[in-house]
């Protein structure tokens, strides 16, 4: 493995100083940020990145802050997934976020893994992860999954890359209307988390988000959701630990037995957390019954274009939408 310089800065400013320039896309991977390391260490060991410098964020004070504020939360990038999973307050107010954190990997991974790392992690596609497959995600010319073995790849929003975003937290946080704060050389910016993730057809195909080379994700703010209830339903092939084959983050605000407002975001089916606007609108004003579940599922998967080996994801995701709706109907 190429030797790298391991730097442990004491302030966020010095982190940002060490990062490349904002337009320095080509050489950005020369510097990598280390949080929980659950993704970075794998990328290093699989020779997917060979940085010259690794910057340890754990020595920077403040990034592990987890603060409740007016019913919402400000969550530092270094807050662990375990902390989110175990927060009784978060589970009470934003169940889907706590549930999604608890659905990540294994206990060991959740103890190490962080919020920021989970949102910025790279794809799990087995072509991307294979050193010798120089796919479009790694600067090659082709998405091998498209015409290859694509059981786990995207059915929505694909092209020219067909990865699925691997984060469990992302769909739940998008459904919660969270915003994300990025700090760069020119200062801070805050944007809706939904705008943070990019489709391969929109942004740089070798990236999954708008984070510039000079930026570090510092925190996520989750607004209050008084009157809402929510859940995260994930399907994995192996119960013990696995990435999602499909997942649903669902939040509802009920008035009586009718849905007044809905947020529905799919995971594991698209290169970004997949917001289902049409389904959300169609849910409004309806009771949760079999017909509602069916309709929501159909609308959520509208436009799905399965590849040769992943047509099952359509009924699977529809089934999960039904399960999530029913779970909240009973909640």
């Amino acid at each position: 493995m190429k030797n790298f310089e391991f730097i442990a800065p004491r302030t966020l400013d010095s982190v940002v100083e060490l990062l490349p320039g904002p337009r320095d896309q080509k050489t950005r991977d020369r510097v990598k940020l280390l949080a929980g390391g659950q993704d970075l260490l794998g990328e290093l060991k699989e020779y997917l990145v060979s940085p010259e410098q690794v910057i340890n964020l754990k020595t920077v004070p403040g990034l592990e802050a987890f603060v409740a504020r007016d019913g919402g939360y400000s969550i530092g990038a270094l807050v662990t997934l375990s902390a989110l999973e175990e927060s009784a307050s978060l589970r009470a107010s934003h169940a889907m976020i706590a549930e999604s954190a608890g659905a990540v990997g294994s206990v060991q991974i959740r103890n190490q893994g962080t919020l920021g790392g989970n949102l910025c992690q790279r794809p799990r596609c087995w072509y991307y992860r294979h050193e010798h497959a120089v796919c479009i995600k790694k600067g090659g010319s082709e998405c091998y999954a498209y015409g290859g073995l694509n059981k786990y790849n995207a059915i929505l929003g694909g092209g020219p890359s067909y990865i699925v975003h691997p984060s469990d937290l992302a769909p739940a946080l998008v459904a919660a209307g969270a915003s994300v704060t990025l700090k760069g050389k020119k200062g801070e910016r805050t944007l809706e988390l939904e705008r943070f993730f990019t489709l391969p057809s929109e942004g740089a195909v070798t990236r999954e988000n708008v984070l510039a080379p000079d930026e570090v994700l510092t925190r996520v703010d989750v607004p209050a959701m008084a009157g809402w209830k929510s859940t995260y339903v994930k399907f994995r092939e192996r119960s013990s630990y696995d990435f999602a084959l499909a997942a649903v983050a669902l939040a509802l605000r009920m008035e009586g037995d009718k849905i007044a407002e809905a947020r529905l975001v799919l995971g594991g089916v698209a290169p970004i957390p997949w917001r289902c606007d049409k389904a959300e609108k169609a849910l409004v004003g309806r009771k949760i019954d079999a017909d509602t579940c069916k309709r929501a599922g159909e609308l959520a998967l509208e436009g799905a274009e399965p590849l040769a080996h992943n047509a099952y994801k359509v009924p699977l995701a529809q089934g999960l939408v039904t399960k999530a709706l029913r779970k909240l109907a009973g909640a």
Partner: protein
Amino acid sequence: MALDPLRLQDEKPPRAAAPGKKWVRVTKAVNGIDTEVWEEVADDAGGPQWAPRESMRLVSREVPRVDGPEKVTGRAVFTHDVRLPGMVYARVLRSRVPAAKVTLDLEPARKIQGVLAAVSLVDGDIDGEVRWLGRPIAAVAATTPELAEDGVRAIVAKYAELGFAVTEARAAADNAPKVNNRGNVIALSKNTDTKEVDEALAGSPVRVKGTWKIPVQHHASLESHGIVVDYRGGEEATVYASTQGTFTIPGDAAGRLGLKPNQVTAVVEHMGGGFGSKFGMGIEGEAACLLAKELQRPVHLLLDRASEFHAAGNRSGGEHELEAGVSPNGKIVAFKARVTRHGGVGRGSGHPLPYIYARDNAVFVEERCIHTNMDSSRAMRGPGHPQASFSMEGLMDECAYAVGMDLLEFRRINLPENKRELYMRQLEKCAELIGWRAHPHKNRPDLSDAEAKVGIGFAIARWGGGGNGQCKVEVRIAQDGSVEVLSGTQDLGTGTRTYCTTIVAEELGLELGQVRARIGRSSFGAANASGGSTTSPSLAPSVKHAAHNARLALFEKVAPLLGAKASELEVRPGEIRVSASPSRRIAWKDACASLGPNGLSAQGEWQAHLASSDIGGAQAAKVRVDTLTGEVKVLEMVAVQDCGLVLNLLAARSQLQGGMVQSLSYGLFEERVVDPDLGLFLNANFEDYKIAGAQDIPAMKAVFEDDPRGVIGMSEAAIIPGHSAIANAIHNACGVRLREMPLTADKILMGLAARKKG
């Protein structure tokens, strides 16, 4: 042509036994290939006998394994843990092209500071020609594992590509690149006359036909393959190996080191799983020897996980095209099979079809193999049987449903006569344990609108599990009363060390802590390699014999002290006494004190009459299928097994459960994935090559039948039927018949969708 009633092999002993001799069927594993042969042995009924089971204190009881504390505290030294003065670490470079003429420039590796040696592994016989993906082509030794890895990556390998086929579909296609010079598709059976079976099929009122597909499974041993070669020049070497055959190592290692076999000692103190993949020292072992010879320093070479997947064997996959003709009364009157084995550059294990059932009418089986540019398959726990079980048990269920019969009754009718009672007894017990009688839909799936559907399935297994006469065991009694039992054998994690101890302690009236087993060293007495479930039935009788002889030798010594003849003595816990006059006794310590400083040593050999062979087992699974998501949750598995004398009930149960877990994992998750165009192994890691974890494991019941026979190896039988029972249970639950493993949600969802469409 009907087959003979079921036997381990379809041939009789070569001739009548000589006076005082008898024929026994023994299982031998040579380089991991299990074969069953007849062996003529002394008909020695007058030798040592197992005591009545109810009278034994330690054998056949629940004894925690004696090396358990060492293992769970990390004190146990596996090959991976060996650290020696001056030791260097080695890594291998794998061919990234499945078929190529390779030329290597090793110099860039040698220039790295800390890299001490780099060797080619493609010189000699193969002359640079690589025929399978991931074949080790070079090895590097360095002062740290990381530097060795750097060295491997610095090697410049040039590949003149030869064209490859890494999937069977590609290899069997017209104009496919040649995997080797024998041809890609090899016919393995001579008989091609299908007239009889075709006529029988044509005359059958009910015919069932299907193609079953079986993926390649990996052994996934937690300790990877590898060895530590301690050679520092001179005329002696010690080789620590993670192997199933202590005695498969010295000869090979000596050859590579330029020594004689008796100058090399193999050590296998503890090993972390083999499942059939660890016989001989492999290319990685050769590499370590080459490096050690060059450096004259100890070399540590354990494969990394990716290399383990690419280059350390696998269970052959296959495709079974089966057709059965069934009479209205439920008898299979015609069975026709075309079996294709997928063994990479190897031929794969034989898939013994028809498996147990349907042997006594028109039977036709054609077998072939398709070669690909992938690592050769090796033996894996029950080679060929789990594959054959999957299609056969599926076919049995499909036939039963087609004629509207109860699944167990249909099996009864089609079992061979000499095995009918055994298997029906076991199946009925499984049925009772899993709640079959109360199951609401026995011969049809749950056709209701329920979202979660529960189903039950059954399957059976057979195995040889006999022993053979390769073990030499020594029991030593010291003057201080301590006892050692010595054998070169290896403990694969099955509890070998523990029963060596219990058998001796039982025989000598001692507690477990008074006997120490020393195993895993080729300087001790010879022992067979652990393949084909042959270890216990070979070793346990030999240990018993040695302990028996030690006891008799001790009796000779102490008889004068008790004023009796040796033949009048008996052992009781902690003492030796005169049977007819129990007050004349001597405590163990005092008896041993009479031995003098040399103590006592006795030898033991295999006693055919203390072992037996030929076992059967049945398993049942209860599953819940979620028709919304396709999720399969195995709720419960039960197993009923015969295996002669159970040496340690705790270890045996654990082994039976381990088999159920491994077959559940095979059924639900495991599959090698290779890209046919890129020639890349896509899931050579424990993330994408999925193995069952704790949360995937059901409630399990493992039951041993009372079986008066001697010791029989049971491990393989345990893994054969589980996944087949699960596949049958899925169908019984939701009506989706999966003929392709793994039995994953995507297939169930697509199957349910197809059923809906009609």
